[in-house]
Each structure stands twice: as C-alpha cells, then as structure tokens.
C-alpha cells in the first residue's frame, strides 16, 4: 500500500517541494540504490544548492554541504582523503551546468572515482524559475519569457553527452522519473553508477530529468508529458557510455 511505503534512508514525513516535483522521486531511488548495494555505511553525499538541498536535512547518510556548482571539487577532496568511502554529488542543472560546468568536466577528466548526480529540470527552480544552461529552446522561464531563443540565448548544453566523450568517465547515463517504467530504468542506471565507483572503474554520472510544473508554468498533471515532449526530446535518455567492465 502507498501509505505503508517508507523510503530507504529518508525521514518519514512531509517535504515542502512543490506538488508534482520530480526531485523527491529522484532522491528516493538514489538512496534506495545506496541501501540495496549495502553502501549505507560508506556513503557521503555532497550537496549543491537548489530545491533538493532541503533533503540534506532528512537523509540518514553522511552529508557534506557545498556551494552552488562546487560539489565536484569538494567530492574530489573527500574521496582522495577517504578512498574507501562512496562519494556522490547531488546537484541541479543550474548548479552543475551553469555555475559548475568547469568543476564537473575536470572531475570527469581526472577520472575521479565519484558519482555525480544531476537533477535536471531545465530551470533554476529554487530562485523561482530562471533559464539555466540546460533550458531547452522554446522553454519559457522568467529570464526567457518568450521562450529560449537561440539568437538571444544560444542553445542548451547537453551535459551527459559532453561527459560521455571524456575518457575519464566510465559510466554516463540519462534517465527520467515521469513514469513508473522510467523510474525503474533510472534506478538501474544509479545502481550501475555506484557499481562503477565501487569497482574503481572511473568517474560515473547519472542525469535524472525531473518534473518541475512550477518552473515550467504548467499544471501538475501535465508535467510528466511536458518532460517527455520538451526536455527528453533534447536531453535524450539512455545509457550513453558504459565502460565499467573495461
């Protein structure tokens, strides 16, 4: 029963994210993956700054708070100092692709044995819905009111696609959380990413496209379709690179 469901390693109780937000779903499968792989007592989650930061207060794994965009360098320091720990970052697209693009690219290039996780809703959600480097053409935000226009705003950076080209990256994948099937597929990506880290195969990355009806100016129930039709059409889902067994 839904009422009996208790998420692994997350406090039971209400969160204050918007109705229809995809981030709680993403957080749930991240922590489930940690629990299922028996990594609970080795994991350190490095948080960026965004709506998801609220979860840092309610997780039963060790948490280190970083600045906007700067979780990958902090994660690097943690992992280099404690090589037996499992280190992941939790960052939004504004955090990782706008402010933090340098950090994640270099972390991947160095092949750091960390798992970077991006919750991508194509907006800066926490500040009220502004254009990020991942916002897709035509998407309306408070800083692209008529829709992102390539002539004025350029085109989105497809981060997972960039990372897949970096040799230091062992596993790169993009998943969605707008349907039960997609949630299950994305969770498999997270399991594989943590496996990549545990086996010291190299840098691992999972991009999770999440619903943001507030930031997209759509009704809650329209958000799953909006994600499929607008964001996933550009940030295409799938496993982009899997060299965990190399």
């Amino acid at each position, binding site marked *: 029963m839904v009422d009996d469901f208790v998420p692994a390693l997350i406090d039971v109780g209400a969160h204050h994210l918007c109705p229809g937000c995809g981030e709680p779903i993403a957080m749930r499968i991240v922590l489930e993956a940690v629990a299922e792989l028996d990594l609970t007592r080795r994991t*350190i989650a490095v948080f960026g700054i965004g709506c998801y930061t609220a979860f840092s207060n309610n997780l039963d794994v060790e948490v280190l708070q970083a600045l906007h965009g700067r979780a990958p360098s902090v994660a690097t320091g943690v992992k280099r*100092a404690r090589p037996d720990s499992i280190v992941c970052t939790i960052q939004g697209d504004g955090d990782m692709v706008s402010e933090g693009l*340098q950090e994640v690219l270099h972390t991947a290039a160095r092949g750091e044995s960390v798992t970077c996780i991006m919750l991508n809703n194509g907006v800066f959600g926490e500040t009220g819905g502004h254009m990020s480097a991942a916002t897709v053409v035509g998407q309306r935000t408070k800083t692209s009111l008529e829709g992102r226009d390539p002539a004025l705003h350029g085109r989105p950076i497809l981060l997972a696609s960039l990372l897949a080209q970096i040799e230091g990256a062992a596993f790169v994948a993009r998943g969605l959380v707008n349907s039960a099937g997609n949630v299950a597929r994305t969770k498999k990506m997270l399991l594989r990413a943590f496996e990549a880290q545990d086996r010291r195969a190299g840098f691992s990355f999972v991009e999770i496209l999440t619903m943001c009806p507030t930031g997209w100016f759509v009704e809650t129930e329209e958000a799953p379709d909006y994600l499929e039709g607008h964001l996933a059409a550009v940030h295409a889902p799938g496993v982009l690179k899997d060299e965990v067994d190399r």
Partner: protein
Amino acid sequence: MTTALTGGRRLLAGSEAIAESMVAAGCRFFAGYPMTPFTEVLEHMARLLPGVGGVCMNAESELEAIGMAWGAAATGTPAATGSTGQGLSLMQESLAEITLARLPLVVLDMARGQGDYYQATRGGGHGDYRHLVLAPADSAEAVVLLGSAFDLAERWRNPVLVMGDYYLAHTARSVTIPDPVERAVPDWGLDGSSGGTGRAKLVSFLGSRKQRDDVGYDLAAHYADCAEHTVEMTRSVEPLAEVTDTDDADVVVVAFGTPARYVQAAARALRATGVRVGCVRPISLYPFPTEAVARAADGARVVAVYENNQGQMVDDVRLAVLGRAPVTFIGGLSLDSSGFGIAPDLDVRILTGRIATALERVTTS
C-alpha cells in the same frame, strides 16, 4: 633532495621550509594552483605528501583548490591550501562558508607585498566571520607558526591564515623542521560510517546537525552559534607580538612580516646614534596585539607605522593607540616592475630616514 622529516638544521628556501613544516605538523592534504610566489610551496607539497600517505592536488583553479581542501577537511584530515592575494580573492566565498561549516583549514597567502592585510584580517568574503591570522617575519618563524596554525585550526575548528611573501618564499635560511606530529581524526569527521544509524553526520554551513523535521535549517540559530564561537575564539587566543626597546622610546615603529626585519635593523641603527626608537612587530594580525601596541605607545611621542601598502594595518594601530600618541603612516606602496613584491623601499637608510622624520615632526611642532 631529502624527504626526511626528523628534526635537525638544514639550509632550505622558504617555500621548502614551509612545505616541510606543514607536513611535519600533520598536514595530509594540500591543494593549490600555480601562482607566483606560491608556486614552489605547491611543488614541494606534491613531492613530499605521497611519501607520508598524503595527497597533493594541482587543481584546475583556485576555486577548485579550496573546494578540494574543504572536502578533505570535512573528513577530519588535516588540510591546507594557499595562493597569493589574487588567488585568495577567488577563494573568498568558500573561505566564508568553510568558517560557517566550522572546519579547520590552514590557508597560506604567499603575498605580493603587504596589500592583503585587509583581505586577511577583515575577511575578503561575504558575511561576518573571523579568521586567525599569523604573520611570520622569516622562514624560521614560519616553521614554528605553521605548527601553531594547525594546532589552532584543529582546536577552534576555524580557518587560520598564514601570511608569507616573495622574500619568505625565495630566501634560503638555516631552519630546524620540528619532529612530526600525529593528529587524531576528530569525532565530527566524515567517513560514511554513521550512515543508517539514525544519526548520520552533517558538515554544513547551514547548520551543525540535521533537524530531521519538515521545517529545515534554522540559519538564525546557526549564525548565532557561530558568532558566539568567534567571540570565544577571539577572547581565548593569545595575541602575539615581538616588542623591542619600547620602554623609553620616543618613537615606536609598528611593522609586520618581512619588512619588519628591515624596520628593526633601522631602529637598531638609529639607537646607535642616540635616538630612542622602539619596535612592535605584530605576529598575530588577528587577534591583533592591541594591548602590546597600547603599552608601547604609552610615553611615546609618536607611533609610526611602516607597511608596504597604502595604509591598512595602520587602522588597527590607531584603534590600539587610541589617542595615547599621534599615529603616523611612514609606509607606502613600494614595488619593482615585476609586481611580485620586491620593494625598493626596503632599505635601512630609507627607513631610518622616515623614522627620524616622523620623530622630528612631533618634536619641532
């Protein structure tokens, strides 16, 4: 080249002495980005740390250098970073938040001149926080102060800045590297192991513990805690200064860092001609040795401040002297064409002239 870390006098360039003493003090993580005159410290740490099971990272910019040091520090590993003033400028947001996260971190400013005094003591970052700041005058003192820096950082869970410069980096001097210190991993250090216990640890500038509720972080409470901690730290840390010949001094000169050695030499030269000159050399810039400066100013006719900048420490001297004597600035920006902090004014003849003039002005007026 030796990596031996046992005590004993050796002739070392300042950068190497600094690196060796940090490793001896227990530093096991260092991250940096090449920039003059900090670069050699990074080189030496890269050479020394692997041999003691430590890690040295050449980060992709100063922003990531301090990020990496932040992560390592959060695990309870004694960590350090550094740069020159410009690189420290890049690190300021992180420095402010690391302080709110209550983390120990030793930060080197191998400065170009003395223009970073405000940045170091006022905090170049946002918000209200304080760092302990130490200013060695030569590499022998730097070796000792770096040991103190790691002790203070650990004790107060606060960043400690150590101010060096080009002279310090590139002057070779006979120094004794202290014996290695072992540091225990603190309880609050992250390693993953408290996961799943219901009390999984948090290291954050938003709060010191998870609220585990649906209300979230109480920043007001956290900032109040941090402020209280700052007051206790400032009250408890003994300010340091070297005071010479001030009891009967007519003119007291205040200077810090490498230039202070020239000022002290100028003071000795003037004493030999019968001028009653004394010196106060602040060694801790925060907490500033206010009492030592005030006592030295008692009975003096003038307090002269020499620093290689447009006047920064002079503010703290004025506050300390508080009208006991007039305070006059005899420093100024003195640079060669490289901009790395070689000061043409650092000449005992020039300094004796300025000190003598400062005294003449009050005597004849």
